[in-house]
Each structure stands twice: as C-alpha cells, then as structure tokens.
C-alpha cells in the first residue's frame, strides 16, 4: 500500500487536518460568528453541489439543467425523517433515503435520454426538476407548497467538513479512474470514444446518477442547516446557480469548482447589504469572467499539492 501513503497524500492529509482544526478553533473562540458560520455552511453545501454537477457537465460533457431537483429529493427526505427522528442517525437515514430515491429517479431519466447523442438531457432534466417540484408542492407528507419548517438543526463544522471532504475524495477518485477517463473521452468526442470500445451510454448514465446521488446528499445537509425547506427553493434558479459554479470554475476542474464557490460565497457576503443591486453585480462579475476567461478560472486544469504546495493555505484564509 505504498501507493496510498506517499508524500503527496501525506501533505494533503496534513492540510485537511490543519484546516479543520484552525476553523474549529476560530469557531470555539467566537472569532467566526454565527452569521459567518452560516456562510461557511452555504459554501460547503454548494461545493458539494458544484462538484456533483461537474461530474455530469464538466467531466462527461452532458448538460443538465435540473440539478436542484435532485437536491430537493435529498432535502425533503432528510426533512421528513428528521421530523420524527431529530438525531444524527435520523439525518443519515434521511440522506440514505434521499440518495436512493435520487438514484432511482436519475436512472429513469438517464436511460432513455442518454442513449441519444445531443442535448436531450438538458431538456429532460429541466422537465424532471419541474415535475419533482410540482409533485412536492402537492404531496402532503412533505407539507405541500409551504414545505417543512422547524427541521432539527444538526449542521456543524465537523459534519459539514466530513461531507465536503468525502465528496472531494469521491469525485477526485471518480475523475482519476478508468471510469473517469471513459467519461472524459465522451466529452472530448463521443464518436471516437465509442470507436475506442467505450460503452458511452453506460458511462453517461453512471456519471449522471453519481452526480444526482451527491446532489441529494447536499440537499439533506441543506435541510438541517436552514431548518426550512420549500419546493419552490429548488427551482431552475437554483439549478442555474449550481451551473454557474461549474462554468465559472472551469469545466471538469474540481479545484476550479471549489475556488469558484469560495469566490461566489464571498461575493454574496460582501453584497449582502446591497440586496437590490446584488443580482446585477453578480451577473456583471460573471460576464466579465466569461469575457476574459471563457474557459473558467482553471479551464480543465487542477491545482494540486504537486503543483502548488501552498495553495490550500489560501483556502483556509478565505474561509476564516
């Protein structure tokens, strides 16, 4: 197992540990306020959402416009379970149920649409997210249009951090495997991928379901962070917000998505007092980025400890 405990992995582990304890300490010393904490949770949850969508759009090149739909499945699954079982066990059960439903729904959407070449998925996902929203609006167990409120708030820095690291671990491993290579080859050239013996439908479905499952997980975390969920919070606007993270960070770049989420999280904080012009400024920033870096911040490159050993220190400062 010398593969696992090499120098690079050790450095990464040390960074992960240090970042955790520094933020933990800052929270304990009340240097990070409750308001800041809520922003950190937002960033963490959206990192998971961005990374999960990156598996579908950035890695595999399949445009999905309904990611918030899968997020809402996880959000309501956790909310319902937490209502009767307001414990961490309840949260994990909720996550499990949300992930399973999300896998089933994404499978049903993916198999017919992903067999075709072209952007049928975009339209199908747009529709499915709407269907999910309408179903939730009319379902009594999930509280109909008013949704579920007073959900037990279990979110904490250790909980968030565990799930963010888990997601980074899984998406990074996915990307850097034979499965990830198959997905990337589909994005690069679907016909050539098929000619190289890649079962393109299979890998598109896998990537889509993987992304949908992670989105559901993020949705469950969302429930227990903001203690209220409404079907209308998971409309197309939310899907677009997630999409922006992927485009802004760079298609296929995991570190790009993470950095983009930090930046947008910070922008949100800075623009908080100017609610009216916030959306305009937000759009302006994106337009400027798209003009000067149409490939996104990092393109398809990754920042890694191999290239820039100091990089993750910067991340720590940003989150503190």
């Amino acid at each position, binding site marked *: 197992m010398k593969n*696992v405990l090499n120098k690079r992995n050790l450095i990464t582990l040390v960074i992960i540990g240090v970042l955790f304890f520094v933020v933990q300490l800052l929270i304990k010393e009340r240097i990070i306020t409750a308001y800041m904490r809520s922003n950190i949770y937002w960033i963490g949850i959206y990192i998971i959402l961005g990374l999960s969508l990156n598996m579908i759009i950035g890695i595999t090149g399949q445009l999905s416009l309904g990611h918030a739909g899968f997020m809402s499945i996880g959000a309501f699954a956790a909310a319902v379970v937490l209502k009767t079982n307001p414990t961490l066990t309840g949260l994990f059960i909720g996550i499990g149920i949300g992930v399973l439903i999300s896998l089933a729904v994404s499978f049903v959407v993916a198999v017919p649409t992903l067999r075709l070449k072209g952007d049928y998925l975009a339209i199908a996902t747009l529709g499915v997210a709407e269907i999910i929203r309408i179903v939730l609006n009319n379902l009594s167990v999930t509280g109909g249009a008013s949704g579920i409120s007073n959900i037990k708030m279990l979110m904490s820095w250790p909980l968030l951090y565990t799930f963010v690291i888990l997601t980074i671990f899984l998406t990074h491993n996915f990307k850097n495997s034979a499965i990830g290579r198959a997905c990337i080859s589909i994005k690069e050239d679907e016909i050539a*991928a098929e000619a190289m013996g890649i079962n393109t439908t299979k890998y598109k479905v896998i990537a889509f379901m993987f992304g949908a499952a992670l989105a559901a997980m993020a949705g469950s975390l969302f429930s227990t962070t903001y203690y209220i969920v409404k079907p209308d919070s998971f409309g197309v606007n939310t899907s677009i917000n997630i999409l922006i993270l992927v485009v802004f960070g760079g298609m296929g770049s995991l570190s790009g998505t993470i950095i983009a989420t930090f930046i947008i999280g910070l922008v949100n904080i800075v623009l908080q007092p100017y609610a009216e012009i916030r959306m305009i400024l937000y759009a302006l920033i994106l337009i400027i980025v798209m003009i000067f870096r149409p490939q996104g911040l990092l393109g*398809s490159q990754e920042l890694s400890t191999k290239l820039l050993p100091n990089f993750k220190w910067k991340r720590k400062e940003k989150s503190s």
Partner: protein
Amino acid sequence: MSLLQIEKLTRNFGGLSAVSNVSLAVEEHELVGLIGPNGAGKTTLFNVLTGVYTPSSGRVMFQKGDKSIELSKLPPYKITRMGVARTFQNIRLFKELSVLDNVKIAMNHEARYGLFGALFRIGQYFKSEALIEEKAHAFLKEVNLDELAETKAKNLPYGKQRQLEIARALATGAKLLFLDEPAAGMNPQETHALTSFIKEIKEKMNLTIVLIEHDMSLVMEICERIFVLDYGKLIASGTPDEIKNNPRVIEAYLGDEVEL
C-alpha cells in the same frame, strides 16, 4: 473462411444509395486498399462496418477464432471489443488529453475494478492502474511515440496526430484496422514515414488492414489488393496492376485529377 466478409451491403440516405449492394472479403493479414472518387461511399462503408451506421440491408461477418460474428448487429463499442478498430478521415483524437491518456482510454477494458473500486480505491484499483500505465508506455514505445507521452494531442504536429490515431486504434487490441485516408494532408516526407509505419506495425502486430486513400502512389506501393467503389457500387477489385489497367476504373476517375 475470410476474416471479414461483406455480403450484399447497402446503406441508403433518403433516396441516395451511398453504399449499394457491396460484397467483398478480406483475408487475414492482408493489406487492402479501398479507392474511388469523392463521394463514392468509402467512408460510409467504414461507418457501416464499424457500427456508426446500421446497414439498410445485407450483413457483415467477422471471423474471431473459430466463431463467426455478425458485426452489423453490434453497436460500435462492441465491434471494437471484437478486435476491429478504425481511424477517421477528419482526425478525432481526444484533443485536450495527453498522448498517454488517449492510449489509456483505448485500453480502458483492461481495468479490473468497478465503480466502487474506483470511488474508494479498493480491490484491484492500484494494481490495475499501474498495469495500464505500464502497458500504455510500453505500447507508446513500440509505436515510437513515448517521448511525446505527456504532450496534449492537439499540440502534436499533424503527421504525429495521424500516427497517434492509428496507434490509439491499435491500443484497443484490434487485429483488423480500418484507416480512413491516413495520409490526407501530409507532405511527401510525412507520407513516406507513414507508409513505413503502417508496414512496420502490420508485420510486428500481425494486423489486417483496410485503407482508404487518395494518394495513389501510396496505395499502389503498399496494398496487396485494391477495391474500387463508384457511386456506392463495387466496380473493380484486384492487384494494383490489374486496377491500374482496368477500363471501368479509368472511366470512373475520368475528369478527376488523380493519376492512376
């Protein structure tokens, strides 16, 4: 039994018969040429043979060991798995990926782990990845591309891109190769290098090759047999000398600038 047997193959596009009732056979370890004027249906024939298009009628049989397989019933990726691979007239490399990754993708079937092995890096993951890496490098050495392993495909000189596309097709483990105009757009030196490359890999890896080419000197030099398509129909087949003197072929090319 021939390695590849095409039986009364037709492919229509609306009212147009791009490939029309073509029957031909290719024997193991042959290097045959497929020629014909522009729009004759050569690429379409390749597309049907490799599963990109389904035939309108007729079938394609492929001999694998002692089994006879109907290729025309399989999707492209399964045809590749049978040991049949191709290159494209307009190069289709994975442009943003390195030479090494292009080859690794062709070797993807060698991975001995599934989704959970990949996500948690358990089971055969490390062993399998190391093996693929090693095989890909060894393969690149064999086709003289190893110094370029880390170069992005799109940054390779044109001739090397063509060479990589052939190499990538081979890396799938294919024994039957379809090359669609491998020398298109090459200068004489590049064409010469490509000619010796094709000859070399054919002998070294015991391949059967079918190639489409407009460069007649190349075709006449390396092909043992030649098939001629015109308006979707097979109008002639034979040795280079027979084809050169075939009146129907000369007629088909009349008005074209190609020198036979």
